[in-house]
């Protein structure tokens, strides 16, 4: 059996070993390499054995340079929350899970999968939901619907009462996406009518209540600002920071907007319809899911914005949802129409880290919370949650 010269290196100081080339069998597998490194680590400082995975292999002057990182344990499935209809959207914060469903309701769930609240009021499918903010026991949340409205609800978790605060009217098509700005005072919505609208997220109780109907549906609110520029339906919108908006559209573009002035700052042109985008402030990259099978990474700051930095190819259907890890700059999760949720590390673009193949139908939405919970909902009416331990340890470190 032939031997190759290999040098191991890592960026993690905790698992540093001597920078000496080793001769290892050419047919070594990841586990063999892991065993080698573990032995070295044990000999060095008596460290307890850790799972390592080889991330990057590069060849330099007959010496194979192998980068190793700590192996993340697979996401552990936690809950499977059944819905009555397709789950169109999900957003979780540290305590509660908010889902939008095709049964025209939004639902609030506890982390344990217990149905806490059903927010009903829309006359059509709820397409997107978002938490606005939480003040103690009361929370503000948003739901966007096919009935062309966005409802701002106030939910009191102690009394478990939900109240429609505002009904945001102004879109001429189904509202497919909402995003709350980092200051939690505004939110932006994107609609099939090609418009982006910015609304105030303040819950104003001082407004006089005129009619019973408005009492029920909440006060009608009009947009603060409207951004027009897309030629097709807006499929996804997000805030990059307090002043900058990013929107993805069916017209094959991702546009960056100045939220203050309403001007378009930049446009990234792709070749296919964009279904979803996600932005990671950690690595300053945009991830996009398109109607071809790729998750593409873009640099929103680059002027020649059409340049694809990286293309993650493993899905077999449209990528309907992507979400960056809030805590890890290299990891993201994507959901696709091929029923699979994939966990990616952008350092290995050839294959995902994990395939989360729990869904039986199209995956419509994914989310990743700060505390390491991955959520995915789909057309099989199920919301799966996964605990991703590596995030915890990373967060700890």
């Amino acid at each position: 059996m032939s031997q190759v010269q290999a040098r191991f290196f890592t960026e993690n100081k905790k698992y540093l070993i001597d920078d000496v080339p080793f001769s290892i069998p050419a047919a070594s597998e990841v586990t063999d390499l892991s065993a080698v490194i573990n032995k070295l680590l044990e000999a060095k400082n008596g460290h307890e054995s850790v799972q390592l995975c080889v991330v990057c292999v590069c060849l330099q002057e007959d010496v194979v340079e192998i980068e190793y990182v700590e192996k993340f344990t697979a996401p552990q499935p936690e809950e499977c929350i059944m819905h009555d209809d397709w789950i169109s959207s999900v957003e979780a914060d540290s305590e509660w899970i908010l889902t939008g469903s095709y049964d025209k309701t939004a639902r609030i769930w506890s982390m344990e999968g217990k149905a806490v609240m059903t927010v009903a009021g829309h006359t059509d499918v709820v397409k997107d939901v978002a938490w606005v903010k939480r003040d103690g026991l009361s929370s503000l949340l948003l739901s966007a619907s096919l009935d062309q409205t966005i409802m701002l609800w106030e939910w009191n978790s102690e009394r478990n009462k939900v109240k429609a605060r505002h009904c945001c009217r102004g879109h001429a098509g189904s509202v497919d996406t909402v995003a709350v700005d980092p200051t939690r005072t505004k939110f932006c919505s994107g609609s099939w009518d090609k418009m982006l609208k910015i609304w105030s997220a303040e819950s104003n109780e001082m407004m006089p209540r005129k009619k019973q109907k408005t009492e029920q549906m909440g006060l009608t609110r009009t947009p603060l600002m409207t951004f027009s520029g897309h030629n097709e339906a807006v499929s996804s919108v997000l805030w990059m920071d307090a002043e900058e908006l990013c929107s993805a559209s069916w017209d094959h573009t991702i546009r960056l907007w100045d939220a203050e002035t309403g001007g378009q700052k930049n446009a990234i042109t792709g070749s296919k319809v964009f279904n979803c985008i996600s932005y990671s402030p950690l690595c300053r990259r945009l991830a996009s899911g398109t109607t071809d099978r790729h998750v593409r990474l873009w640099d929103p700051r680059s002027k020649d914005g059409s340049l694809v930095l990286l293309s993650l190819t493993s899905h077999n259907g449209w990528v309907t949802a992507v979400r960056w890890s809030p805590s890890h700059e290299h990891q993201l999760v994507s959901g696709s129409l091929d029923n699979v949720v994939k966990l990616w590390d952008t350092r290995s673009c050839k294959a995902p880290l994990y395939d989360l193949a729990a869904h039986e139908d199209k995956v419509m939405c994914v989310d990743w919370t700060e505390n390491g919970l991955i959520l995915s909902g789909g057309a099989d009416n199920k919301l799966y949650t996964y605990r991703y331990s590596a995030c915890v340890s990373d967060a700890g470190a």
Partner: protein
Amino acid sequence: MRPTHSGTMSKLKNKKRNLEENADEQLPIFDKDGGKDGHLDDGDEDQGDLSDSEESVFSGLEESGSDSDDEEEEEDGSEEKSSDVEEDKAADGDGDDQLSAKEVIEPQTDGQHSKEKKKKKKAAGKEGGEESVASDRDSGLQISSQVDEYEHDTSDEEDIRNTVGNIPMEWYKDYPHIGYDLEGKKIFKPIRNKDELDEFLDKMENPDYWRTVQDKMTGADIRLSDEQVDLVHRLQQGKFGDVNFNEYEPAIDFFSNEVMIHPVTNRPQDKRSFIPSLIEKEKVGKLVHAIKMGWIKPHRPKETTPQYYDLWAKEDPNSILGRHKMHIPAPKMKLPGHEESYNPPPEYLMSEEERLAWEQQDPEYRKLSFLPQKFACLRAVPAYSRFIHERFERCLDLYLCPRQRKMRVNVNPEDLIPKLPKPKDLQPFPTTQSLVYRGHSSLVRSISISPSGQWLVSGSDDCTVRFWEVSTARCLKTVEVGGAVKGVAWNPNPSICLVAVSYDDTVVLLNPGLGDRLVCTATDQLISSYEEPEEVKDQPVQWAVAEGEGHEQGHRLILKHPKAVRQVTWHGKGDYLACVMPDNGNSLQVVIHQVSKRRTQNPFRKNKGLVQCVSFHPIRPYFFVATQRYVRVYNLIKQELTKKLMANCKWISSMAIHPGGDNVICGSYDCRLAWFDLDLSTKPYKVLRHHKKALRSVAYHRHYPLFASGSDDGNVIVCHGMVYNDLLQNPLIVPVKVLKGHTITHDLGVLDVTFHPTQPWVFSSGADGTVCLFT
């Protein structure tokens, strides 16, 4: 001859003189003699005179050499001449005869004197030979020159024996005279009155009869002298007239092969032999000019080589030909091997079996054309019997060898296919199945997409119409109708939200309530705001407003047709709706409804053939009606037939109009798709036969240069169909993708195809109850 001549001359003169004398004085004598001889007398005298002189001459001739004779004669002649001159003078002097007689005598003495002198000289000449003769001549010449040499020079004169000159003598045949003398008197011929007897007597008596001839010029008889007779004899014998002429004298070669130091002649060379000739120069100049002008072509040197064609003449291995790629060298002869030796090594000799095998083998297939043989010595080798045969075969080899490598036309079948751009370069076009819209329980006959591209409607045989969200394949609405849905059509006007659904003999206009709420309510208002016109026209179609449960489901208007409606299609503005009711009865197959006025028109009183489908022109007021074999294009404003497209297929199933309006595609049940360019021809610009089974549906994309066809074989074929604005450029049609996604159910595959209005996506509905989205 000259001396004799001059002799005769002198005789003539004498005669003249005699005649004069006769005429003057001797007439009596003449008379005296006349009794006996008559006028012969004169002649006699004349004869005598003549004979005298002649006798003397001839005697002289006989006596001695001719030269001396000549001399004598000459002398005589000169003597006579001189006397003649005397006489002439006398004659000139006229009257004084005596004087003249004296004068006559005197020269005679002179003459005698000179005669004697000459005789002396003659003797000396005989002794002295030639030299003396020459001097004699000279002296003679001198004498004659003394007289007058031009007086008797007769070189350029005629024969002057008479005075008439050189005229035919027969002119004077009947006259007694010939010519006239100087005094105008007749010169009489000698009287010839001899009869036969006289002749005979003369012949008998006269010994000179044989040598007597008549002079025709004068008519006188002349007795030829011996010399003359001899001359006649000589001439008759073919000899030279001159006796002394030696024809066999030794020849002297002036021009011999020997090179002399002196020129043959002493003549100095001409000047012209030293200077170039001007004439030649001029001539050469003319030729040069003619050659320059091309009038004269210097003829090429004649081919002296024999005229046979040496096939391998240019065979030179080092030549450029030899190195040339395509060149074929002459076949080489096999080099002799050991087996050809007269004494080959034993391994080359054939064994007995080999020899038998060789003999049995066909000569063509023999490896060796001869049997190797061994001889003791070279002397024992016999003549090679196959020599000529081998040479002949070698010649055949050279003659039949291909001289040129013939380029086979290697036609690659793929080269014959027109070069089409690669499908990869024609993106975007749908490539993969992305979404499947499941829900129908029976075959989906028709689909249509909303103008915004957000919703899709499908009509199925399970008597339902389903509305789908395109992006998620979510069925948002299901509307039940009272029969198997044959056709659905979403109103193309974005400000109207209406879907026409046909089932059985009914067309229902549905308001699905999807999309902009405002639009939906506006549509409802539009329909409800209709006011019945005053006069109700009798219409073939009954319009009814849906109520109750149907209205809840979205039914708005119900149109009851007299026959089963197979297809519904909207005009681009969204107000007119055309319905097809195929019927062999040829009447009322197509109706056009105006929704806003709830009016129905029957555009054709009579349809030719079974109408398969109809379509409105996207821009212009044209109406396309496809029957089984033809597509007729009607101008709706002028109400006339504009064009008739011949599809060249058996049964048209479907038709689609390019959004530009100038191109039409027709799908047919015999697996063809015909592309018509309306500007080009009424025949198909291109016919595609990509499907294995009948085509059910064709569709154009509204923006992208794409068209698709769905077939019973379960495939959707997407083609790139680029229509150029340039009228000169024909559409580019490239099949780009075969999309498979439907399972064949009841021998039916894809029933309808339609494109997304904005994305390069194609929907197909199948007999398996699904609708597929290919992106």
